[in-house]
């Protein structure tokens, strides 16, 4: 059954997909820099009245935990990347490369050390690629 993006179920399945992605395991093996939050801006069309965060507890090439929470509760994330829902849909469905999306100001690093993100750009891409393994239902399609 397709999982709705974004949601708690999708976030839990994403964690498993990340851990099943050997390329991420290799590219992210040196990642010890903390949790990463993907924040989807509030969108009445999605039925969300607050910014929502998918918080990934990434460590040495694996995802130790994942939570879907209000963005203002994701205070323990070292890195926060924010975008409107349509932009996340483009990135998570593989239509747009995440680096290109940042260059186009579609994804914004709201919190975190950019040189670290750049150093781990291959891991970041593999992280996003993990989502392609999921059967995802993107609302408004």
């Amino acid at each position, binding site marked *: 059954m397709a999982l709705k993006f974004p949601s708690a179920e999708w976030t839990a399945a994403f964690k498993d997909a990340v851990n099943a992605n050997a390329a991420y395991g290799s590219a992210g093996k040196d990642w010890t820099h903390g949790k990463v939050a993907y924040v989807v801006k509030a969108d009445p069309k999605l039925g969300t009245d607050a910014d929502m965060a998918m918080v990934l507890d990434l460590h040495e090439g694996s995802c130790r935990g994942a939570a879907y929470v209000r963005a203002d509760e994701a205070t323990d994330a070292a890195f926060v990347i924010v975008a409107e829902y349509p932009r996340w849909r483009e990135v998570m469905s593989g239509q747009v490369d995440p680096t290109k999306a*940042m260059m186009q*100001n579609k994804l914004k690093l709201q919190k975190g050390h*950019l040189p670290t993100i750049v150093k781990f750009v291959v891991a970041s891409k593999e992280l996003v690629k993990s989502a392609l393994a999921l059967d995802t239902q993107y609302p408004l399609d």
Partner: protein
Amino acid sequence: MAAIDLAPGADENGLAMMLATLMAQNLEDHPERLGVFGRLRGRVAILAEDADVALTLEFQRGRVVVHDGVVGIPDLTLRGEAEPIGDMSRMESWGPFPDPRGEVNRAMWKALREKRLRVFGLPRALPLLLGMGDVLAVH
């Protein structure tokens, strides 16, 4: 402390914001690079053609102004695909020069051979290219 200023409109340009933030955080993390930054003078235009984004870095010996789009006559122009442009800051160094054995560097050479990345203004602007590379490097 390095002065990194955004010209009007640059705050809406994702690549401009990325490079401004990268320079600021790199120079904070590696103050030894301030000497190189202080010597840089000239305009560098960067065009990520497939992302439809362009910017100009106007280095003024200890200050850089980041402009949205191509502004003025560049001394050095880099144009091509977003991927090799994004990889510029991951290039591996061997002393002051790019390490030919580096994985990212080999990918960059391939992009240059395949014309997915083109550089205009060399050899005259080589010191500007190497100095900018040093300021942007994340290694």
